[in-house]
């Protein structure tokens, strides 16, 4: 019972903080943002449970065209808004690297499969 109260208290503290943050910062799309913010811990728990019991590799799509430019634009805006030093944008770079890595892994799997197929066909 006490642990449940503690967990609910943590969730209440989290909801209070993120609701204030989202409502004060966002003027447009407030309801979806609030929904994402409030439901985030539940999604995290479900994702962990899903990863444990039905662990599957995530499929990564190609990085959208123009993401790097959008990121650079947001970074410039951040510097203007908050008067802080530059931070290197990493989303597009990481996305490209991971996509390239996933393609490499797929190619490796295909290569292994073709070798196995060749061995099987050689024995027939």
């Amino acid at each position, binding site marked *: 019972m006490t642990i449940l109260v503690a967990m609910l208290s943590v969730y209440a503290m989290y909801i209070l903080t993120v609701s*204030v943050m989202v409502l004060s910062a966002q003027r447009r799309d407030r309801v979806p943002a609030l929904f994402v913010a409030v439901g985030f811990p539940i999604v995290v728990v479900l994702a962990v449970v899903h990863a444990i019991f039905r662990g599957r590799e995530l499929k990564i799509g190609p990085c959208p065209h123009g993401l790097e430019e959008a990121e650079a634009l947001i970074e410039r805006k951040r510097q203007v808004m908050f008067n802080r030093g530059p931070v290197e944008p990493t989303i597009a770079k990481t996305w490209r690297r991971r996509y390239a890595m996933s393609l490499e892994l797929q190619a490796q799997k295909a290569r292994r499969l073709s070798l196995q197929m060749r061995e099987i066909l050689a024995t027939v």
Partner: protein
Amino acid sequence: MQLIELIADLIHRNLVLTVALALIPLKLLMVRLCKDQDGEWETVMSMPEDLCYVSVGLLLSSLTAGRGPLQTYFSGFPHPRTDVAIILAINFALIVVLHKISQSWTRVQYMHWRAALAVRGDQNSADDLQLELNLSPSEDNVLHVLIHHLVGLLGSLLIQFVVVGFWLYRIAEVFSSR
């Protein structure tokens, strides 16, 4: 047991959590009353750290009392003073860790999220920078970056709250064991 008695019992047994829960709306209310819009986000970001200071305050106040809950809890242990010192050291270490997370992760994500909101036309719709993004997929790209930073911000806040919540829960156990 009546409902009011059940609630009172729960509050009494989880006094530290109740104090922590009361602190957040009070602090937000005070900042709102001061109309300090620039300082509001700083207040929100430092909330988990503040909760750690609440637990430090409780521990120190318990130490100053002659036979406080901390001494009572550790009285059966072979080295009570060392245990109390370890508890305090863990609490201070937790403050440092939370401060570092807040400085290097939460604030950076927050600033990027706000910048993405501004670029998306949420706050400054007549921004010149937006003219650079008049292509159709650009809105999606900004939304991608916005969601990425929002999720990063929520994740870092959640981690901090879970850590602080767990710590406060342990402290609450010490305080309710009298």
